[in-house]
């Protein structure tokens, strides 16, 4: 129950902040919009100002605007983008597949592989000496730098992969083989830069946790009972995975931020790049819509992690059914 309240409060706070974007921004959105056109006659300007204000819904009192915004959120309606003059939801829908294709595999693969390899490295000198330095370098590398480095080495120098965009601009977007192959080809480098940073973090974290678990009383006891090294490690792994999972919830915001930077470096046409365009074009309604999607995405991911936690850790299941252990 408490978790649900947390999510509702977070959603409410985030939506309110999001609503405030065009209001906080310097300048009046209507005037910014009109300044794009060359309107010479003053009467025309005033008339247009009135129409635009009405279509943006900013001609009503502030509280009414706030309520209207909530109505829009519930109906998936975030208004019209200034720059592209298309519905915001429409523009976002085109960008979402790219971001998901980048983020979902990067988060899941780095989490599972990082945990496995980190656990393997714990207390195994030879492997540890390899994993530890590599993990640290990946984890410490700024997203922007790693992305630029990969782009320089593999795109500019070796020419194995294209340096930018989400697919070959000559190929129409759709379910054709040539498009899918081209999209995959463009996907590799951005994916790698998001994946490697997270991978470093997970493997190091897991290594430290498993070392700690291997030194606990239960592990010592198991060993003194003559349990095999494999069995002890398996129990250590299962305990160490729990803090890693709550770490995943904490790291999501960082990964989303890193993803924005990566998309900007590679001009990858996902939400991150769209944010960048929206800022440079002062397209506040688009920005508002993108943030709403990101916030919902992060909240959903947190929710999934919470459920996964309950599935993995039987103790939390106990406390949920009411038997406060």
């Amino acid at each position, binding site marked *: 129950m408490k978790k649900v309240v947390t999510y509702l409060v977070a959603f409410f706070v985030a939506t309110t902040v999001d609503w405030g974007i065009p209001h906080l921004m310097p300048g009046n959105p209507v005037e910014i919009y009109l300044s794009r056109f060359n309107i010479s006659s003053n009467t025309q300007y005033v008339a247009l100002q009135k129409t635009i204000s009405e279509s943006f819904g900013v001609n009503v009192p502030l509280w009414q605007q706030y309520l209207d915004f909530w109505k829009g959120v519930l109906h998936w309606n975030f208004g019209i983008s200034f720059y592209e003059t298309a519905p915001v939801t429409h523009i976002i829908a085109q960008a979402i597949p790219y971001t998901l294709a980048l983020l979902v595999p990067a988060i899941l693969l780095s989490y599972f592989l990082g945990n496995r390899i980190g656990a393997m490295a714990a207390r195994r000198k030879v492997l540890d000496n390899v994993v530890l330095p590599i993990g640290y370098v990946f984890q410490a590398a700024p997203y922007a730098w790693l992305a*630029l480095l990969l782009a320089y080495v593999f795109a500019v120098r070796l020419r194995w992969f294209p340096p930018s965009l989400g697919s070959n601009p000559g190929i129409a977007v759709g379910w054709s083989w040539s498009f899918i192959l081209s999209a995959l080809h463009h996907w590799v480098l951005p994916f790698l830069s998001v994946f490697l940073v997270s991978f470093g973090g997970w493997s190091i974290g897991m290594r430290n946790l498993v070392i*700690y678990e291997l030194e606990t009383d239960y592990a010592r006891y198991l060993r003194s009972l003559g349990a095999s090294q494999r069995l002890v490690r398996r129990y250590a792994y299962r305990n160490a995975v729990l803090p890693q999972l709550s770490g995943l919830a904490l790291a999501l915001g960082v990964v989303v931020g890193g993803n924005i930077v990566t998309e900007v470096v590679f001009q990858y046409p996902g939400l991150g790049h769209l944010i960048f365009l929206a800022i440079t074009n002062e397209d506040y309604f688009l920005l508002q819509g993108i943030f709403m999607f990101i916030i919902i995405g992060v909240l959903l991911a947190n929710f999934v992690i919470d459920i996964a936690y309950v599935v993995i850790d039987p103790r939390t299941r106990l406390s949920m059914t009411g038997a406060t252990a």
Partner: protein
Amino acid sequence: MSVNIEPSGHKSLATGSPAASPAGLGQPSLAEAGAGGTVAGGGVAAAFAGRRRWEFMHFALRNKKLMIGAGIEAVFVFVAIFGPLIAPYGVTKTFPPGLHPSLHHLFGTNAPFGQDVFSQALTGVRDSYMVGALGAVFAGVVGLAVGFAAGWRGGWLDELLQLLTNVVITLPQLVLMIVLSAYQTNRSTLFEGVFIGVTGWPWVARAVRAQTFTLKARDFVDLAKLSGRRASSIVVKDIAPNMASYIFLVFVLLFASSMLVAVNFDFLGLGPSNSYSIGDMMNYASQWSALQLGVWWWFIPPGAAMTLMVVALYITNVGLDEVFNPKLRQQ
């Protein structure tokens, strides 16, 4: 329906898996395994302070990781303090553009402007450290205050602070920064540091809260309570010293993660308006197509320096952890 590190789950954490309390950290889970053990080692600190300090130095000086990490870090701190003074040229002084790295220009010169990249990097280290330090201090202070308050008082205050923590966790930092920076067009280094601190504290609060819970149940805290001292005095004099080593590690990690977050901001042009940090350099390099023109020395060396700064902090952290916590020492 309490999941995760909520109070009911917490009781089992205290006895079950000790590593679970200091959960995965802000930067993709540098999970701080050492914490549980360090606390146990505390006891009544004051009486043994002298001996313990000697013991600390004994292990510290023999810990290779700590010595290497701290050594590298010391070099960078020196650069951060004296960088602008030892830089061979001014940051904006111009030379022929696009010069390859040479003895005259260690990192070459950048492309359309012809500025000395090495001098800019030396200056940039200072800005990155400033933001890192500010972010660490603010996140550390807020995180400690929230963690101690929630862990010590429990009850409704705990519930409220946990709600706050969980809400802050779910708000993506970069998204908030974009909103704020559009409003606040003239930003200072202080603004960036404080912002990073104010949004980066949740994992500290969680970990400190869990630690406070376990310490609160100890006998020496009961004794302190019986002696009628004020809560704030007990927290500061009895609880905090037993977490001292852990708190120290937290600051090291916060320092590293704040610098990394700042690079992201600067790279997107959301950094301080009047600075020249490592992130700014990568921003300009990318904007002026250093990538396509092959001017690799504009972004690779500064980024590598940044990575080294952070790696050195991580290594220092592991080294310190091993010094504080005998269980983790190399076998």
